[in-house]
């Protein structure tokens, strides 16, 4: 039986009724004390604290009675379901049950009735106002009855969303045929992991999820990481791990890994026609900004909800297609402290001046040298372009090749250190020329030095000839001293470039895989 409802239903209902009875008796007695207080005896010294305490006790017991009642009814509802019931059946039953309970709570404790299933359509400030109008008992009831709605609605406090999503995970993973995508939120013993702070969980389609890393009670800076192509609930651990590396166990940092939008599907090396079809769909999705536009609306609301609740500077980091989502969200009203575009194919504008004034205090951008996605500029000029107006910074050198270069922004120490600096409000180390550019510079330098040497040699040829002839200068030493540093650097750079090229060729040689080779026509024998 799910953890949330693992109480004896009969005991729960009995206790709820008994506690409710005690509350009514206590209220009657408290009224007598109130009567004595009004009796003119000037006994306020004693009656005031007494009345305050008794009112508190009555309130606590009233809330407890409501919670026991909810939990007991949940247990009864779960017991009535067949153990092989599907998630959909469970949810439908839970919905019927909770609708009835909501109505009964309305009668019992005066809940202001709203169509809670429509809550997600409300603006975050309206949701917030509604939530604050509820008393503690009503909030408990709402979390237990509508965990899927409460856990996904912007405007509900993050701590409550975490509780609600834990309830959802607890309910759903208790089912024998539960969604395997939820397994990542179970501890090694197979129980829901209470330490995970899930602030968004929606199982529909590819799924939406957001996880908070760190402690908001101690954090003085918050980062929101928006991942790109291929991100979905099933692989949420990827961006989750990125967020963990960025947070790095620092108490002053909190990071939210926000896969709160439907990102384009990722490309996979096709091993079947199914994979090939998936790639074609993905290519179509990633070529369009449609999903980013839908995601931008969600991100803007999520950010608005954070603004309502938190008072810490927030930095948004969009990676890849997520940077386009971020850029469009800023155009649509998202505000924050700093915005960072990483490996961006374009952010929907060609300049920071196209963003609303004062939406963000500062903009940053970085590309790994050779990142093929960043080179696309499919959705506008690269934010690393000097004319864009963002500050560029160093993300280090990646050991990867081709697409790996695009996925390493949260992997290397230089990038992580600079990203933390930005999130904390500091200045990151500036971008460096690419490896190829550096090698080119070295080669140019070598040429200049060579020409200089020849020129000098020409000017002092006679002296040099005399020195060499007399043995005053050793020819080998002279050559070594003149060319050594430049040659070493050039050779080292060429070795690195050569290694990367060989890695790339090796990677490409494995494609197309054998299964696909058999299916494709190959009249010229390219696959042989």
């Amino acid at each position: 039986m799910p953890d949330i409802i693992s109480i004896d239903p009969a005991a729960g209902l009995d206790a709820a009724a008994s506690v409710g009875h005690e509350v009514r008796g206590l209220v009657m007695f408290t009224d007598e004390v109130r009567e004595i207080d009004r009796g003119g005896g000037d006994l306020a010294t004693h009656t005031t604290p007494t009345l305050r305490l008794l009112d508190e006790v009555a309130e606590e017991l009233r809330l407890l009675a409501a919670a026991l009642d909810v939990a007991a009814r949940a247990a009864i509802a779960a017991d009535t379901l067949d153990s092989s019931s599907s998630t959909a059946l469970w949810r439908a039953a839970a919905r019927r049950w909770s609708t009835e309970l909501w109505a009964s709570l309305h009668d019992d404790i005066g809940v202001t009735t709203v169509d809670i299933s429509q809550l997600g359509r409300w603006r975050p400030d309206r949701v917030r106002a509604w939530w604050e109008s509820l008393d503690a008992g009503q909030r408990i009831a709402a979390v237990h009855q509508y965990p899927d709605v409460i856990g996904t609605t912007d405007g509900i406090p993050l701590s409550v969303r975490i509780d609600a999503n834990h309830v959802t995970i607890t309910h759903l993973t208790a089912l024998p045929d539960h969604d395997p995508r939820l397994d990542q939120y179970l501890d090694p013993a197979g129980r829901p992991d209470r330490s995970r702070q899930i602030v968004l969980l929606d199982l529909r389609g590819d799924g939406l999820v957001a996880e908070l890393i760190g402690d908001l009670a101690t954090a003085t800076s918050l980062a929101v990481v928006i991942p790109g192509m291929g991100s979905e609930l099933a692989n949420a651990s990827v961006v989750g791990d990125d967020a963990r590396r960025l947070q790095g166990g620092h108490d002053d940092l909190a990071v939210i890994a926000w896969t709160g939008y439907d990102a384009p599907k990722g490309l996979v090396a096709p091993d079947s026609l199914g994979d090939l079809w998936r790639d074609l769909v993905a290519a179509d999705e990633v070529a369009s900004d449609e999903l980013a536009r839908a995601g931008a609306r969600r991100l803007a609301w999520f950010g608005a909800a954070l603004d309502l609740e938190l008072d810490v500077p927030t930095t948004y980091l969009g990676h890849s297609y997520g940077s386009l989502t971020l850029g469009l969200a800023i155009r649509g009203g998202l505000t924050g402290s700093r915005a960072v575009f990483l490996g961006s194919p374009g952010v929907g504008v060609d300049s920071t001046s196209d963003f609303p004034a004062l939406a963000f205090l500062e903009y940053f951008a970085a590309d790994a040298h050779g990142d093929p996605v960043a080179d696309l500029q499919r959705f506008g000029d690269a934010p690393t372009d000097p004319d864009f107006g963002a500050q560029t910074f160093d993300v280090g050198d990646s050991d990867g090749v081709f697409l790996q270069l695009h996925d390493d922004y949260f992997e290397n120490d230089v990038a992580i250190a600079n990203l933390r600096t930005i999130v904390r409000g500091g200045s990151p180390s500036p971008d460096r020329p690419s490896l190829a550019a550096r090698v080119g510079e070295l080669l140019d330098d070598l040429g200049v030095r060579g020409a200089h040497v020849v020129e000098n040699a020409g000017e002092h040829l006679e002296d040099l000839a005399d020195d060499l002839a007399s043995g005053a200068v050793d020819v080998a030493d002279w050559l070594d001293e003149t060319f050594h540093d430049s040659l070493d650097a050039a050779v080292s750079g060429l070795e690195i470039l050569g290694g990367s090229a060989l890695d790339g060729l090796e990677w490409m040689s494995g494609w197309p895989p054998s299964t696909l080779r058999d299916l494709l026509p190959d009249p010229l024998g390219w696959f042989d």
Partner: protein
Amino acid sequence: MPTSTDYDRWADRLHGLSDHLLGLDARLDRTLDPTRLSGGTVGPLVARTVDATTTNLAASRGHLLALTDACRQRAELCRRWSRALDAYDEAMHDHVTRARTLDPGDHLGPPPTRPTAPGPWAQRD
């Protein structure tokens, strides 16, 4: 203003309420049996409420017992004051009677002093 009778009645009710709170605490301990209601997220809520309620009920009982004592003391003070006022009334009556029948040259003496009320909260029975 309350009389000694009011204060006595209040003291009795407050004492009864104090006893009721003692019983309520014991009943809640039985009703909210942790072995039956410890499961799930409601378990910690039960434990937390029982702890908070026990603390608040104990504090409430302390205030109620102090309030009961205060009411009993006031009832006693009201009674004493009322008796003193009765004696004063009688002495004043004698004083007035003697004044009316006083022969020339006799000395009447000072009138009796009216007892002071124990507080603004007191009313003569």
